[in-house]
C-alpha cells in the first residue's frame, strides 16, 4: 500500500462521488418537499442519453448539457404531472419512469444511432478536464485535486449554493414546510403544489447535469443502463445525509470512495461485492439507528404519560 495507490483510490473516489452529489442535491430538495422520487435513476439515464445525442449532433458539449437538462426537465414535467397534478402513487410513477427511461433510451439509441449496447463516435465532444496550473508543484494535492472533469468542481460549488438555498433563503423553509406541514404552509398563503413543482424542477435539472457528467465527463459514450444503480446510491445518500446538503455531500464522498475502492480491488481479483454493498448497508443501519433512537424517545414519553395517567387515577390500573 504505497502513497500513490492511496492517492489514486482517493482521487477515483472524488470522481465517483460527483454524480451522487449532483443527483443527491436535487433529490434532497425533492425529498424535503415531500416526494420520495425513486426514479432519480431514470432521470439521470435520460440526461446521459440526450447529452450524447446533443453533443453528437452539434459537436459541442455545451449543447449536449443543454439537451440533457431539457430532456430531464421534460421527464420532470411527466413526474410532476402524475404525482402533483393527478396525485398518483409516487412509487408507482417512479418505477414506471425508471422502466420508461431504460427502454426509451435503448429505443432512441437504435433509432438515432442504429446501435444497441453502447454508442461512441469521434463527433461526440466531451466535457473538458480542468487543469489548475498552480497545483502542479504541490505533490499530494496535485494528484488528488487536479485534472478532474469540470463537473467535479461544479458539484463542489453546488454544495455551497444548495446550502445557502436550504438554510439562508425562504425557499429552503418552504421546501421543508411543504414536506412536513403542508397545511401550515398553505395557511400562510403559499401554494404547496407550487413549491413541489419548484423542487421537482430543481431535482430534474440536477439529474440532467449528473447524466451529462456520466456520459460526457470521462467516457464520451452512451452505454445501455449506464447509470447502473447510481440513482439509488444517491437516494441512499439523501436518506443517510438528511436535508443538510453538506452532510449529504460528505456521505456521497464516502459512497464514492467505496466505489473507488471496489473498482481498484476488483482489478486485483478480490471480490468487490461487499464494498459495493456498503452504501446500501450503511443507509439501512443509519435508518435503524435513527428509528431506534426515535422509538426510545417516544416510549419514554409514552411511559411518562402513562405514569402521570396512573398517578392521577390513584395508581389503579
Amino acid at each position, binding site marked *: 500500500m504505497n502513497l500513490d495507490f492511496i492517492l489514486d483510490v482517493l482521487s477515483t473516489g472524488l470522481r465517483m462521488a460527483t454524480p451522487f452529489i449532483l443527483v443527491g442535491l436535487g433529490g434532497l430538495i425533492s425529498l424535503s418537499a415531500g416526494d*420520495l422520487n*425513486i426514479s432519480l435513476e431514470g432521470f439521470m439515464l435520460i440526461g446521459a442519453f440526450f447529452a450524447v445525442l446533443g453533443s453528437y449532433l452539434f459537436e459541442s458539449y455545451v449543447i449536449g448539457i443543454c439537451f440533457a437538462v431539457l430532456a430531464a426537465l421534460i421527464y420532470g414535467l*411527466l413526474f410532476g404531472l*402524475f404525482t402533483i397534478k*393527478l*396525485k*398518483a*402513487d409516487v*412509487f*408507482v*410513477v417512479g*418505477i*414506471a*419512469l*425508471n*422502466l*420508461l427511461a*431504460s*427502454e*426509451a433510451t*435503448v*429505443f432512441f439509441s*437504435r*433509432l438515432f444511432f442504429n446501435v444497441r449496447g453502447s454508442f461512441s463516435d469521434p463527433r461526440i465532444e466531451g466535457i473538458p478536464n480542468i487543469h489548475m496550473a498552480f497545483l502542479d508543484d504541490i505533490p499530494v494535492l496535485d494528484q488528488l485535486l487536479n485534472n478532474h472533469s469540470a463537473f467535479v468542481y461544479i458539484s463542489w460549488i453546488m454544495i455551497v449554493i444548495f446550502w445557502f438555498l436550504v438554510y439562508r433563503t425562504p425557499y429552503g423553509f418552504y421546501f421543508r414546510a411543504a414536506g412536513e406541514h403542508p397545511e401550515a404552509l398553505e395557511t400562510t398563503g403559499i401554494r404547496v403544489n407550487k413549491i413541489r413543482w419548484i423542487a421537482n424542477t430543481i431535482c430534474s435539472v440536477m439529474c440532467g447535469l449528473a447524466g451529462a457528467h456520466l456520459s460526457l465527463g470521462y467516457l464520451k459514450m452512451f452505454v445501455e443502463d449506464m447509470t447502473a*444503480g447510481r440513482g*439509488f446510491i444517491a*437516494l*441512499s445518500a439523501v*436518506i443517510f445525509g438528511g436535508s443538510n446538503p453538506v452532510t449529504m455531500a460528505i456521505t456521497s464522498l464516502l459512497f464514492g470512495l467505496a466505489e473507488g475502492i471496489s473498482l481498484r480491488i476488483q482489478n486485483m481479483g478480490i*471480490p468487490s*461485492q*461487499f464494498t*459495493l*454493498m456498503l452504501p*446500501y*448497508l450503511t*443507509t*439501512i443501519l443509519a*435508518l*435503524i439507528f435513527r*428509528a*431506534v433512537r*426515535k*422509538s426510545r424517545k417516544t416510549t419514554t414519553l409514552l411511559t411518562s404519560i402513562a405514569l402521570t395517567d396512573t398517578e392521577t387515577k390513584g395508581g389503579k390500573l
Partner: protein
Amino acid sequence: MKNSKKSVNSLVSILGVFLATMLFGALIMLMIGKNPLQAYAAMFSYAVGDVSAITNLMNRSMALILAALCAAVASNAGIYNLGGKGQIELGAIAAAVVGYKLIGLPIYIHLPLCILAAIFMGIIGAAIPGYLRVKWKVDEVISTIMLNSVFFMFTSYLANYPFRDMTRWSGTTPPVEESAKLPFLIQSVELRSGIIFALVAAAIVYWIFNYTNQGYRWKMIGLNPRFAQYGGVNVGKDQMKAMILSGLLSGLAGAVLVCGSNYRYWESIAGPYGWDGVLIAMLAKNNPIAIIAVSFVFSIFKNGALGMEQVANVPSDLTGVLLAALILFITGREFVSILFRKRKHIILVDEEVKQ
C-alpha cells in the same frame, strides 16, 4: 347488480386504456416510418400464435404472477414490499445451490428441498424489512429498495466465488441435477409445471384474501391501520405475517425460475420480474385473479417484441416503452376519474348547503 355493473365499467375503461396505448404505439411506429398493423400482427402471432409460443408465454408468466402476488400480499396489508427483486435472487440462488450440490436424491425429495430452500431465503429477505418496520417503524419502502441491492451483491458474490461454474465465463452456478427440475406438464412442447405453482398460489391468495379472517384483517389494516388497531387487530403481527407470505411467494418465484426454466442461477436472474411484479399488482389492484390476466398481457408484450422486430423491423424496446405508457395511462385514468368524482361531490355538497 351494482357490483357487476361496476366491474363491467372498470373492464371497459381498462380496455379503453389498452387501446389508447396501442394507438400511442401505432403513432410512434408511423412516425418512424413502420407499419403498425404488420407490427402488431407479428407481435400477437409471436406471443400467442402457436403451441410453442404459448409455452413461452406460460414460462414467462409464471414468475411474473408470483412476483406480482408477492407485491400484492404486502401492499394489501398496508406495507410495501418493493424488494421482490432481491428476494427472488435469494430464492433462486438457494434453489440452484441445493439443486446442484445434492446428488443422487430421488426427485420427490430433491425438488421439495430446492423449493423449501428458496422459500426459506425468500422469507428471510422479506422478514428483515418487515421486522424493522414493525419493531422500529423503519420505512419499509426505503429498506426494501436498499436491500434489493444488498441481496443482489450478496448473490452475485456467491455466484462469482464459492458456487461459480468454472466452465462458464462468470456469475453463474453449475446446472441443477435432473432430479431438481420441475416435471413436465406436457412433455412434447416442453411446458414445465411452474405455471401450476403460480396459478395455485394465486388461487390460495385469493382464498385467503376473501374467505379467511386473516384476509379480512389484512384488508382492514390496508384500508385504515389505526381503525384496525382500535378494532383489536394486532397490526404489527399481521403485517409481519403479510411480509412472510410475501417473501415466501418471491422465494417460490426464484425456485420456479431456476427449477422450472433456467436450470441454473445467473446474476440478476430476477431481472425485471421484481419491479414488474409491483407494477402488475398495482394495475390489478392486488386482486389475484386480475394479476393472472395482467401478467399475461405483460408477457404478450414482452414475448411479442421479438416478432415486431423481425417482421416489421420495429426496435423490440418499443414494447417496454408501451408498457410504461400503459402504466402511466392507467394511473392517470384512475386519478382523473377520482378528480371528477370529487368535483361532482363538492358541487352536490354546495347545493345541499344552499338548500
